[in-house]
């Protein structure tokens, strides 16, 4: 089930940007703050935040959201508190999709151990961008436009369905570039585990239902393959 609601923990520059970016994507976005100062700051910005503490009382979450359709952003300013928040949420909700912020790689590992599904290490991310800008400026700009700007060129991940024509095919039999004007970046082969492997590795994967394929291409073409995967005849 695709999450329809999002909960953001913490109110700082990061959570403000997260709220700004995801508000158009989710039906319901809630902001939870840990102290009075954050509460007042959110209020000044016109956001009705809710208070929470680091105890195991998550009644307000359960009453407000359908936890199965909820995505959580742990964006507290302090890494230690963020780890504690992540582990508290994971201890209570098994299926919750948790995205956590970490200052560095060291905290990132702790967040992962605490049960976060995805972690965004802030310093390494910023350092990567600076490094890329200095060493590969064109590639950086192109990828930035593809990923973050609302242009036609974008990325899409699709999960292979049972009725998909791709189900049962070998990767080398398919010519996404030629036939769909799409570039296959990577594949998550369920048989091999949950981690992805790059298409350019040259492995001849057997595509099964449940595998995830990550494509890059124009939205229109991506839509075609998405429908095709869903079993719609083109």
């Amino acid at each position, binding site marked *: 089930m695709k*999450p329809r609601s999002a909960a953001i923990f913490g109110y700082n520059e990061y959570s403000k940007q997260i709220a700004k970016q995801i508000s158009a994507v989710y039906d319901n976005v809630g902001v939870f703050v840990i102290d009075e100062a954050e509460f007042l700051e959110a209020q000044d910005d016109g956001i009705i935040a809710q208070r929470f503490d680091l105890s195991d009382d998550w009644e307000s979450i359960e009453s407000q959201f359908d936890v199965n359709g909820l995505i959580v952003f742990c964006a507290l300013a302090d890494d230690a508190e963020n780890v504690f928040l992540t582990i508290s949420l994971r201890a209570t909700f098994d299926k919750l999709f948790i995205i956590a912020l970490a200052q560095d790689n060291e905290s990132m590992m702790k967040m992962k151990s605490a049960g976060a599904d995805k972690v965004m290490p802030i310093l390494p991310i910023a350092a990567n961008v600076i490094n890329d*800008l200095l060493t590969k400026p064109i590639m950086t700009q192109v*990828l930035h436009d593809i990923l973050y700007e609302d242009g036609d060129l974008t990325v899409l991940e699709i999960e292979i369905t049972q009725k998909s024509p791709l189900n049962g095919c070998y990767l080398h039999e398919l010519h996404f570039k030629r036939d769909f004007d799409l570039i296959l970046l990577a594949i998550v082969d369920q048989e091999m585990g949950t981690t992805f492997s790059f298409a350019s590795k040259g492995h001849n994967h057997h595509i099964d239902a449940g595998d995830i394929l990550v494509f890059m*291409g124009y939205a229109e073409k991506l839509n075609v393959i998405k429908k095709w995967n869903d079993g719609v005849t083109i």
Partner: protein
Amino acid sequence: MLSRWVVNTAFFLHTWHSYQRTKIFFYNFLENQRYPYKKYFDIFMMGLIFLSVYILIRSVKHELPHGWLIFNNYVISLIFLFEYILRFWVHSSNSKTIIEQYESDVFLHRPFSFTGAIKTIFAQKMEYVLSPTAIIDLLAIMPFFHEFRLLRIFILFRVLKLFRYAKSLRRLISILASKKFEILTLMVFTMIMIMVSSVLIYVMEANNPDSKINTLFDAVYWSVVTIFTVGYGDFVPVTDGGRVVAMMIIVSGIAVISFATSIVVSAFTEKLDEIKEDKMIDSVNALKRMYLVCGFSPLAHEVIHKLHKRHIPIVILEKDPQKILQARKNGFLALGYDSGSLHTYSHLKIDFERQVEAIILLHESDVANIYTALTIRELTKNIALYSILHHPSNRKKLLLAGMDHIINAHELVGMMSKIIAAQPVAFEVIHALRSEQTSTIVDEIILDSDMKDRFYALLKDPLFYQRFSVLGIYSTQFKVFHFNPDPEMNIEPGDVAIVIANRGLIDEFRTKLHRRGKV
């Protein structure tokens, strides 16, 4: 009439570009420690000195070929004389002095003081002539007059010239000079000790027929040998009085040696940081290309760590001593200077156009980054400036300060959160490609128009087919990205292909692309 002619000549020389260029060239060659070719001149001169001393030593017990002596007495001496004259010339500018005097007199409605100008010129030149190094230079030329046998010993002054050319020797002198007072005190104390002990030992020993100390010179020699704890034993006191004096002198000698040692050690300890700093500045000046990082923050640590893989040297400017210490502990080249001060750059003599690839401003406040950017923009407009933005409200200010690229971690996280929430696998794939954590990377390949056929042919090569993905070609001329390019698409000079493949395979593709002949 003469004054008029002198002023006109001064103006002529002052505006004569060839003359000024030649003078600057010789000044750089002789005096400018940062001039890259000076070291070759210094090495050449040191070579001449060693050769000269070798010839002197060799001539003591061997008959030397006439050519060697001619070389030593005339060629080397002439080179030294020429050097002396050049140094005399570049020490000060006569034309400038005359013009300054003339303009000052004109401004004050006075007749041009020719004698005043000559006096100033004379004082400036005498300042050079009477400087210790110039005196040594002059004495080193003396062996030129080899007919005077005594003057040959002056060849040893050439050894003293080494102080001029060897930086480490100059540094040693400057370190000892910082303890001038202590050294002078020690010298006075030692001289008094020698004088007193010489007189005492002479009085005690001179009339004793068993004693070898018969003259005042013997007494002084014995005192010096004893006070400096050498004690050859060729002269020994034989009287009781003389032995008492000897005991006192031996004890005093230990004090003199200890005092002298402590002066040298403390001088070196005090100057150690300065020496290290000087050495670091030298190594920065020697860099042909570098990234300049202003401010050492946790982010700077990450950035430098990543940039190190590119094998381009990185120099950090940070004024906080704690952070400098931390940076140096991590093995980074960090200098304790304020990146926002013009003085820093003039002191470090960084050549932005020649040495610096880009400047990255990573202070922990936007205020410091803006201040540094404005300082750098005062010095150069051409260098690329990258800065971290801490508060989105300051973006415009950073742009106004002349920043070329602004990176805001908050915005990045916001944008990433959108894609990570919707397409976590896609995010992970792109993140892995960019962070270069795996062997598969995304890279740029710069193309040329004559590479078109080869480029598309290589993509069909079994080595690259299915394993080398071209995302697209970016046209630098039209600033357009052509996704999944058609093999018929033209390639213009400077176009950039964005590719995904194994790092080794990309290198192989590059090599084959630039190789001539059939694919």
